[in-house]
Structures are given as structure tokens and as C-alpha cells.
């Protein structure tokens, strides 16, 4: 049997008269980051289990995205009278980003409720469950990256140096994913009616946001698109890759939305962290 090292034996105190909620929440976040390898291992295990027995495994997602891109690409480039070689790269990136955001929103709702057995058995930073969900989504998104490369190659689309802006864009997306998972995970643990509401909102957002259609089609209204947070989140990654850059007001909006999301998630987590075990 392994002996625990003595350094791990700090005093554990929980005093209802002195809850120190902020400090506990920060400890949880730091602890979750320390155990990110566990979250990563669990995310891999989830991915493997989900596609156990299927020959192509998570590459089915790649195929279905490919079929969507092919079919919708032909239809909408005709409807919108766009050059298919310009439209396809846009559509491929849009759909991959949307699938990722949609999956995060759906799985964030069950982050804590599906980990109930673990939560009731051992003290583990709640952040681990959040990272598990986010990593799992990233793993399945990564399976569609070859498709993007293929579409770019076939259409002869080569992004310029502004493509490096995809890095800050991606970071913004991840931060929102983590904050959103905290918020939705807590809310759905308490109120079991939230997941269907989230699913409906996401479906509506898919059509209201420029995913299938290009922002230019709005003409004069395009300047107001930054009011749609889903557009902003997609655009900070898509713009550098297929549209030659991102308008400054979209970057500004992304910073505002991200700050808001992070603040909301932190307030919820600090306030309700110690209630979560009772909810699930």
C-alpha cells in the first residue's frame, strides 16, 4: 500500500459561521487545474466509450459534418448566388464551430448531474468535472479538423498572416466554454427543466446567427451583428481563417461578453458551490 506524503495533510475546516466562500471557490479552481490530467483521462475514456464497437468511432462526426458541408454548400451557394469555392470554406468552419458550441451547451447541462456517483463518493474539485466536459468536446471537434484542411485545399483557400489571430479567438472560445459549463452545470443541477430550454434556445440561435448565411447578406444591419453573442464567439475564430480578419468592434464585444460570462459563472460558483452535493 502507498503511504500518502505528509505535505498533503493540511487541516480541513468547514465552519458554517465563517464559510469563506470565495477562498473555497478559488481552491476548487486551482485544485481542478492541478488534476487536469485526470480530467483529460476521463474525457478520453468518455470519447472511447461513446463510440465503442463502431468501426469509425468519432470519425462519424467528421463524416456527418462532411455530408452537411457538401449538401448545404451546393444548395446555399446557389440560393445566395455565391461562388461555391468561396462559400465552402466559410461553411465548413462555421459548422464545426457551431457543433462545438452546441455540444458544450448540451453537455454542460449534465456535467454535474451525470457525475453524481463520483461527487457523492469523494471530495474532488468540481472544476475537474467541468474540464472533463470541455476536453471531451475539444476531442470530438479535433476529429473534424482534417475536413477543414481538405476543404481549404480543394477550394484553394489560403488564409493570410491574419490567421494567427485564431489563437486569441480560440482562447476566448475556451474561456466562454468553461464559464458557460459552470453556469449551466450548476443551474441544471438545481432546476431539471433547464436542459430542454437550452436546447430550444440553441436551435433558434443556429438560424438567427450567421452560420449558414454570410454576415454580408444583412447589408446595413451587419454593423449591429455584434449584439449577438453567438456571432461574436464564432467570428473571433472564423474571421481570421476565412474572412481575412475580424472587425474591431467584434473583438471588443467578445471581451465584454467573456467578462460577463466569467463574472456570472464565478458569482454562481462562489454562491452555490457548497450546495451542489445536496442538489444532485
Amino acid at each position, binding site marked *: *500500500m502507498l503511504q500518502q506524503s505528509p505535505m*498533503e*495533510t493540511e487541516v480541513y*475546516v468547514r465552519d458554517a459561521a465563517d464559510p469563506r466562500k470565495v477562498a473555497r471557490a478559488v481552491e476548487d479552481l486551482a485544485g481542478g487545474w492541478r488534476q487536469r490530467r485526470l480530467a483529460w483521462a476521463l474525457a478520453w475514456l468518455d470519447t472511447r466509450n461513446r463510440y*465503442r464497437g463502431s468501426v469509425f468511432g468519432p470519425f462519424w462526426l467528421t463524416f456527418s459534418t462532411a455530408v452537411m458541408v457538401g449538401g448545404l454548400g451546393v444548395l446555399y451557394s446557389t440560393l445566395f448566388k455565391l461562388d461555391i469555392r468561396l462559400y465552402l470554406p466559410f461553411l465548413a468552419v462555421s459548422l464545426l464551430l457551431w457543433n462545438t458550441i452546441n455540444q458544450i451547451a448540451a453537455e454542460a447541462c449534465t456535467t454535474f448531474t451525470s457525475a453524481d456517483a*463520483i461527487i457523492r*463518493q469523494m471530495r474532488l474539485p468540481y472544476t475537474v468535472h467541468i474540464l472533463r466536459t470541455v476536453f471531451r468536446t475539444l476531442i470530438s471537434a479535433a476529429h473534424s479538423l482534417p475536413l477543414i484542411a481538405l476543404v481549404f485545399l480543394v477550394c484553394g483557400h489560403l488564409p493570410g498572416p491574419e490567421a494567427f489571430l485564431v489563437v486569441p479567438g480560440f482562447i476566448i472560445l475556451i474561456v466562454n466554454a468553461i464559464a458557460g459549463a459552470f453556469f449551466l452545470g450548476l443551474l441544471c443541477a438545481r432546476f431539471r427543466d433547464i436542459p430542454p430550454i437550452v436546447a430550444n434556445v440553441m436551435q433558434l440561435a443556429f438560424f438567427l446567427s450567421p452560420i449558414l448565411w454570410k454576415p454580408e447578406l444583412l447589408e446595413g444591419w451587419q454593423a449591429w451583428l455584434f449584439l449577438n453573442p453567438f456571432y461574436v464567439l464564432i467570428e473571433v475564430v472564423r474571421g481570421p481563417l476565412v474572412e481575412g480578419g475580424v472587425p474591431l468592434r467584434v473583438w471588443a464585444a467578445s471581451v465584454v461578453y467573456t467578462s460577463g460570462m466569467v463574472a456570472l459563472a464565478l458569482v454562481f460558483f462562489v454562491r452555490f458551490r457548497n450546495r451542489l452535493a445536496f442538489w444532485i
Partner: protein
Amino acid sequence: MAYIRSEEMTVEFPLYHLGARSLKKRLLAKSSSRLRDDANRVVVSALRDLTFTINPGERVALVGSNGAGKTTLLRCLAGIYEPVSGRIELQGTIGALIDPAAGMDQEATGRENIVLRGMFLGRTPAECEAMAEEAGQFSGLGEFLDVPVRTYSAGMGIRLAFAAATLMSPQILLMDEWFLAGDADFIARATTRLEQLVSGADILVLATHDMNVVQRWCTRVLQMDQGRIVGDMPVSDFFAS
């Protein structure tokens, strides 16, 4: 040194699904205030004003009927539930054997599950591999260690769970009585390992119904009833009364 100190610790469980869980009920309750039931949620007092201290070297049995709060108290000591009022303070590494199957992935192999368990406890992958080797030998699963847990018989499942759960040697050992739910052969094997584990720990807290277990393993008895401690005595006094 390991110790546990609880001062007037109280834990209450909200039972939302009896009434107030859904958003609809919550919203309706807010808007039509005349219809609002003041008892918006049902609250169960699981633990009430528990005050006790457990010093190093003590082996404590929690006894009481079903629903007395034994498992809830173990979960509080493990840091899963936080008190609603009062205070809990403890020092020492904790090993919680509360639910044997928790954290087991049915689709993963026995070996992968043991590695996973090690990672849950914050160990490095290299340490986890060593743990898997040791647990494999102890559980006697042999080549079944590399087969998905889903295919195990119930007995094999318990053996693996027990091996995985007892990999660490903690200072404070919290046990629910599930570990006695095995066949005679398993109990014989498990007893040796438990003895090692218990003698290595500074404090043992054990929830049980079985008086033989109390007599054999424990030095002190905490009697619980309806979330309160109704008796606190050395084992000899407990059996004398």
C-alpha cells in the same frame, strides 16, 4: 497528528423533487403569492448538533438504525457535504470506502479502472501503474484484469472495487459496511488487508449494524438516532449495557 473535531455540526437535506424542484413550480410560487406554500421545500435534518472529538488511535463504530445519519456523517467527514451550521475540523489524509462502485467505468478494463482510481486520488501515472500491479495480485483477478468491468461477475466486481478502494493507506479511514458483502473466501482475503489498513490508520470511523464487527475492530461506540448522537461510550460499556 490526525484528529476529528465536530462542534454542533448540523446538516440539512433539501428534497426538491417532492415539490419545489421544477422551475415552473418555483415561478408560479413567486407570482401567485396567496397560493404559495410556505414550506417551499421539504427539508430533512440529517444530522443535528453533533459535537464530538475523535483522537488519534481511536477506532469508532457508528451504530444506529437505518436512516440514523451514519452514512451522511461519513460523507461530512470525507468533505462531500458541508455543514449548514456548526463546524467540522479535521487533519489527516482521508480514505473513504463509502460506495464501492463509485467512479468505476463499466466499459474500461479492471486495470484502467485502478489507474483511474489512483488519478482520482491525485497520484502520478507511474504510481498508478504500480498500484494496478499490486491490486491485480491482491484481487486475484488474473487475466480478467484486462477485460472490461462490464463483463465481471458480481463477486469479481466487489473484489476489484475492494482492491482499488484499499490501495491507499490513509490516516483517517472512513468505512461503510458494504465491504462485508462478499463470499466467505473474499471476506477471509479482505480481512487480512483490512487489518493492515486499519492498523496503518490513525483513526477509523466505521458505520455498521453488525455487533461482531464492532467488538472486533472498534474501541469506541457512537450511537446515533434520527441524526443525533444518543450515546458515546467505550466498546466495553456498550456491550455491558
